């Protein structure tokens, strides 16, 4: 192969090499180690003390004192509340913001929660929920309250993404719909939503992944209570990994089960969306 062609072929790989090295070192290698640890009794200091096969997975799925299914159920409820909440707030906010006079001001204001540390948000909302009628005191309201915080924190970021998607929709489609007699709602349903489909997929997938990993608010605000009503899977993983001596292997197994759950959710969702017509390509 001529030298210049070889260089041309290699150049893109050289560009992505640094990012790939970081991802491989801190992502893939770590994942590989955690997969290996999930088949061991493993302690962060003492190290591995024996191959246990699928015991950690068996214990998580069928153990008498396992809270995996309970935590998974709470996590799924949280995910559903969050996805519904984010879609119900971020898109309307984006549409309102697009029409607003000081768009950049509103964009900045709504985006602020996204750049505020989760710990700070959790502490602030801990007190707000306390003042507003003890939402965190009841097993019925604690999880929805945490989801409310999650939606509030994520709405601004997703609004910006929707805003970008809305900007890409050609004006003439609305004009044509208007000429055809479509009202606001019909324009939204037959023009906006189909044209935002890719954005919707992105926002939904990212919200699902983020919500499955909810941790900070639970850790700070409820510690999984009251009565385990907010015990989510990431919290259970953290507790076993760092709060219990020698349970890193079990925690790794839980983490891989979480990975499998997210994977299944995302694949299902991608298939559902793929079955529709693509408008914006």
């Amino acid at each position: 192969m001529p030298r210049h062609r070889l260089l041309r072929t290699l150049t893109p790989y050289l560009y992505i090499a640094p990012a790939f090295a970081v991802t491989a070192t801190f992502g893939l290698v770590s994942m590989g180690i955690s997969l290996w640890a999930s088949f061991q009794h493993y302690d962060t200091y003492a190290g591995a003390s024996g191959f246990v096969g699928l015991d950690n997975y068996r214990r998580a799925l069928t153990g008498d004192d396992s809270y995996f299914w309970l935590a998974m159920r709470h996590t799924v409820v949280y995910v559903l509340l969050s996805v519904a909440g984010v879609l119900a707030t971020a898109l309307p906010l984006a549409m309102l913001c697009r029409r607003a006079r000081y768009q950049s001001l509103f964009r900045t204001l709504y985006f602020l929660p996204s750049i505020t540390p989760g710990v700070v948000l959790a502490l602030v909302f801990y007190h707000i929920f306390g003042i507003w009628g003890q939402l965190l005191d009841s097993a019925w309201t604690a999880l929805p309250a945490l989801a409310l915080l999650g939606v509030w924190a994520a709405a601004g970021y997703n609004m910006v993404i929707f805003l970008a998607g809305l900007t890409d929709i050609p004006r003439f489609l609305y004009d044509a719909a208007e000429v055809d007699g479509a009202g606001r709602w019909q324009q939204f349903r037959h023009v906006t939503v189909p044209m935002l489909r890719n954005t919707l997929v992105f926002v939904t997938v990212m919200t699902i992944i983020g919500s499955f990993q909810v941790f900070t608010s639970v850790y700070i605000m409820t510690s999984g209570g009251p009565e385990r009503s907010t015990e989510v899977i990431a919290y259970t993983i953290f507790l076993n990994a760092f709060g219990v001596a020698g349970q890193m292997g079990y925690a790794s197994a839980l983490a891989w089960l979480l990975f499998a759950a997210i994977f299944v959710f995302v694949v299902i969702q991608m298939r559902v969306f793929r079955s529709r017509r693509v408008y914006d390509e």
Partner: protein
Amino acid sequence: MRARSWTSPALAAALALLVLAVVLRAGMTRALIARVTADGPPRPVQLRVWDWWSSSTNEEYGGYFAELEATFERRNPDVDVVYQTVPFSNYVQKLSAAMVGPTPPDVFQSSIIWAESSYRRGMLRPLNDLLAADAHLPASQRVDEAAFLPPAWRHNQTVDGTVFGIPQIIDAQCLVWNLDILEEAAATDPEIRAMFSRLEDGTVDYEHIRFDAVRDWNHFRQLIGKLAVRGPDGQLERAGYVIHAHGSGADIFSPWLASNGGHYQDLAGTRALFGGRRGAETMHFLARLYWTDRVCPPFRRQLFDRELFQQGKVACVTAGTWSGKDIVRDTMGWTHFGKTAFPPGPSGSGQRSLTWGNMLVVTTRCRQVDAAWKYVRFTCSLEGNLLRSRHLGYNGPRRDFYDTEQWQRALTERPYLSNVKQICLVGEKFRHIEMEAANHQANPVFESLLLHYPDVVDGTGAYPSVEAALAGAAANVDNVYRRYNEQAASWEAARDRATAASGAVGDQASAGDPARASDPGPAER
């Protein structure tokens, strides 16, 4: 001529190199600055000491560590003590990482929460040989068992007597009473008046509450009922006692269980013991205070016992013996409160408490054991206890501390300390095995029982009975202990194998090279 762009690749590369050089030099630069700003000649021995007491966030800790360091370094001119503050909340994670990294701590303060498991994981050096070598020292400098109050010398050793830490504090759970409220009630109620000590002339000493002011649980219920105040509508205007249900079940349950003759766990850490009759009696007692007697404020996650107490909204709370100083600080100098132990329950005998003593430990990766031990010994000596008391206002775990003039003066200046030593002395051993994991299993059950006690008693709750709920929680905690002990046994076996292997290698090596035989090498870890 075209101006050079700030975004030119050469300039960017030069800046990147500069940043890289600064990063690479950082450690050396720090060392250089330390050398330049050092008071005297460089010290050959550097001792890394970890603590969660933060000099940067608490002026008192700053003063304490400054004097401790200055005094110790003056007497040990070859040692440079370097403190590192690590937040309590992620102490264990950071410790685990540091212990396998290049800069492990030599000495650290260990909470009883992690001490035992840190030892069994192989992080802590046994101290028995160092203690034995100190037998010739004056009593005030020794840090052996005889020097400490018995309740302080518990969490720092295994059941077979291996000592892995030296207590530097002692704390105990107790009942803290608002003496303003008690004094007001005592004006008309002889039973409340009898809670106070008497002066030599026989008059009531309203500054001091008697250590045994409360006879038993029934007496406690009566007293708390009298101290609670209701408005015309029957609503509680001032509570008698606070029970915090959300997330902290074992904290309120355990000391009352101790006063009922029970224990959360066995000493060896193999079984949970709260699931029996004594545990059930304790839970019924606490739940009835709330649900039947209605002398407690409503269960609220955001309400903190001590805040309510400091605001005068409750007559009595559960707190640590150390809390006095914080109450004085938070109330801008109010000192009219007193402390007692927990009165005995129907299956208990005598006043009881729960006691613990956080400790200084020497790590297995300590490079300078001699310097580390000198530091531990100084910090935990009588002088170290007095120094800590002077800066931080805390009582010490040593016996001789309570005979000092400084402590007697503290008792005069701060009457709320009067029962502290007695409370510590009647303390049972605070639970100490895998506390987070045990809490994860048991606390939600305590929480449920307290929050829904009437439903459980009626048979319509999440559990068939209080007894069944506690037995189930105890069984799950048993699983925690079993797993932990299995793990710990495997770590110990692995270490034994490693030691045996390194011993065999050492034997071979020393046969050829006598100098290597005395070098402990990596196996020392």
